[in-house]
């Protein structure tokens, strides 16, 4: 007993209550979901078997993955350009941009979603203008389809993509880029060989953040998809609230959790996660 006590830092006593609370509040519900997924409506792996009975669930999972991957690619690419512009413009413009970025965090997702309808809907500003100008004869279907979902999601995710990239770019030593130029490298050589590799941890952090957040989206797909783009999160919500198939919902939630953990694990095989999450590489 004493031997054990000697090895435990007394500091643990201070954080122990907090630790217990965190475990209770986070781990508890997660275990509950896991439990539900193998007990509701009856004990066994029946819920998981449903994945392979018919293609409905697999199709929803596939739609979700496809949309999340495309969203992530566009958000991170656009976010990278924005972060780059912010880091390299004047302080005043940078402050403006940062303010706009942060303000967008406070605008509710519903407002943004409906704003897109006003802008790009069938009778939205863009279609009306183009029709008035005689550039198109019928409205372009930007909304109520997968394109609409992607536009809405990318727009929502860009600020999330920008922040980790901004941190990553700001922490770079600009002299390293000067050194590259001094050694004769052109702008694009410096970008591809020095800047991009050095901001890779930021890109990975941004990708993980956007992808994981995208997985949980349902308001935007539900509204901008015109009901035809069904993603896992919305399906889970329907199973919980409308059809009362809690076992199916829990199974899908457990699957998403496992997917995210697997992704982190694969990522950790290639690079130190501490570098991605802001720790030092050394």
């Amino acid at each position, binding site marked *: 007993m004493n031997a054990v006590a000697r090895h435990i830092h007394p500091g643990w006593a201070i954080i122990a209550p907090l630790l217990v609370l965190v475990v209770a509040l986070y781990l508890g519900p997660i275990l509950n979901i896991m439990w539900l997924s193998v007990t509701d409506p009856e004990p066994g792996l029946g819920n998981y078997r449903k994945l392979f009975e018919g293609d*409905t669930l697999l*199709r*929803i999972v596939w*739609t979700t993955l496809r949309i999340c991957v495309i969203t992530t690619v566009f958000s991170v690419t656009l976010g990278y350009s924005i972060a780059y512009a912010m880091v390299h413009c004047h302080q005043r413009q940078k402050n403006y941009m940062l303010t706009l970025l942060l303000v967008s965090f*406070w*605008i*509710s997702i*519903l*407002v943004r979603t*409906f704003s897109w*309808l*006003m802008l790009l*809907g*069938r*009778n*939205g500003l863009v279609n009306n203008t183009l029709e008035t100008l005689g550039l198109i004869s019928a409205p372009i279907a930007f909304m*109520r389809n997968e394109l609409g979902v992607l536009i809405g999601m990318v727009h929502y995710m860009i600020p999330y993509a920008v922040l980790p990239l901004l941190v990553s770019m700001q922490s770079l030593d600009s002299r390293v880029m000067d050194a590259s130029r001094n050694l004769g490298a052109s702008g694009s050589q410096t970008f591809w060989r020095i800047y991009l590799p050095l901001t890779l941890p930021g890109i990975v952090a941004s990708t993980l953040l956007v992808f994981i957040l995208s997985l949980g989206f349902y*308001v935007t797909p*539900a*509204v901008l998809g*015109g*009901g*035809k*783009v*069904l993603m896992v999160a919305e*399906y889970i*919500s*329907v*199973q*919980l*609230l*409308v*059809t*009362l*198939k*809690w076992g199916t919902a829990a199974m899908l939630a457990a699957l998403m959790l496992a997917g995210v953990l697997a992704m982190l694990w694969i990522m950790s095989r290639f690079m130190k996660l501490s570098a991605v999450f802001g720790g030092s590489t050394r």
Partner: protein
Amino acid sequence: MQDKQFMKEMLTESAHAYKEGRMDRRTFLALCGASGIAMNAVLAGDAQAAADHVVMWNWGGQSVECHGSAIGEAFTAATGKGVKFDTSGPLEGKIKEMVDSGNVTADVADADLFNAVSLGPTGHLEPIDYSIVSKDKTLPGYALEFGVSVILYGYAFVYDTEAYGDNPPKDWKDFFDTANFPGTRALYKWANGSLEAALMADGVAGDALYPLDMERALNKIKSIKDDSIYWGSGSEVHSMVVNSEVTMAIVWQNRGRNMENDTDGRFKLVNNQAMAMPGAYIVPKGNPAGREAVMQFIATAQEVPAQLKLLDCLGMTPSNPAAFGEIPEDQQPYAITSAMNIDKIVYNDPTWWGENGGDAVNAFLEAIS
């Protein structure tokens, strides 16, 4: 889910007001900005059930005001008990969760009658006390063990008069006929109403719908899938119609009047073959105010004056046959149990939906996604 729908409603309504010049731009933007906070405020809910009042669990928006004036005032006058509201929306999953958690905070939920069929036998609802509530003050078949229909709403459709001119669509058959009536349709995403409409369009008689032939219905739905979009909330379909995203839409008939007004008559409601949906009051098991108080509340809502006020305020049609004849003339076109509509409508079977609804919704989602 429903808290979000509330915000959606509020924002779409105000987006309207803004568009029509009833609200200035600044107010609209402020409203948009505030919504993030407002949502939490709604979520938190100040409804605290106790013995001296009844907590009504409804869908927010106008219904707080309408339920208060139509039922609450008479109920308070008769019993001395107050009425409070929880506006988070009594979806089936939420009722189940509330009862299962043992923390029941609502006394009466403004739900669908099929909820009474699915949640009653599993022990999540109090049975209706028919010594206080009257079986005669609703339509036959709509007074069930665990819930009683207090109002009716309906699935009807609206169409764009500019799109179809002299040859307007008259029934569900026309609604599903995209060859002769080209244009985008909006259907209800959670299946009910949409499935019945599809079967009627395919030739099934209105009184022979149940049990639903799911395969036949879904095939019909899929046949116009490329020309369809789907809505999940009243405000969503409202904006689809007002913004002319569609040329025909299945709508909750009580919203038809608003749509006609908001489009200056460009869209028109068709009540032919409209499906009457029994909206029901159900009581979560172990409700805080006790059975007697809540049964008195439900009985109050059945009375003719309350029924007419609900029609006036929310557009919900009376289910008490004694009120049918009292429907004012200007409301008759929009009330499905009015003399001018009652012979054209069909009736939803809550028992079939209570027993098969979950699978039907999932099959429908699979078909449209």
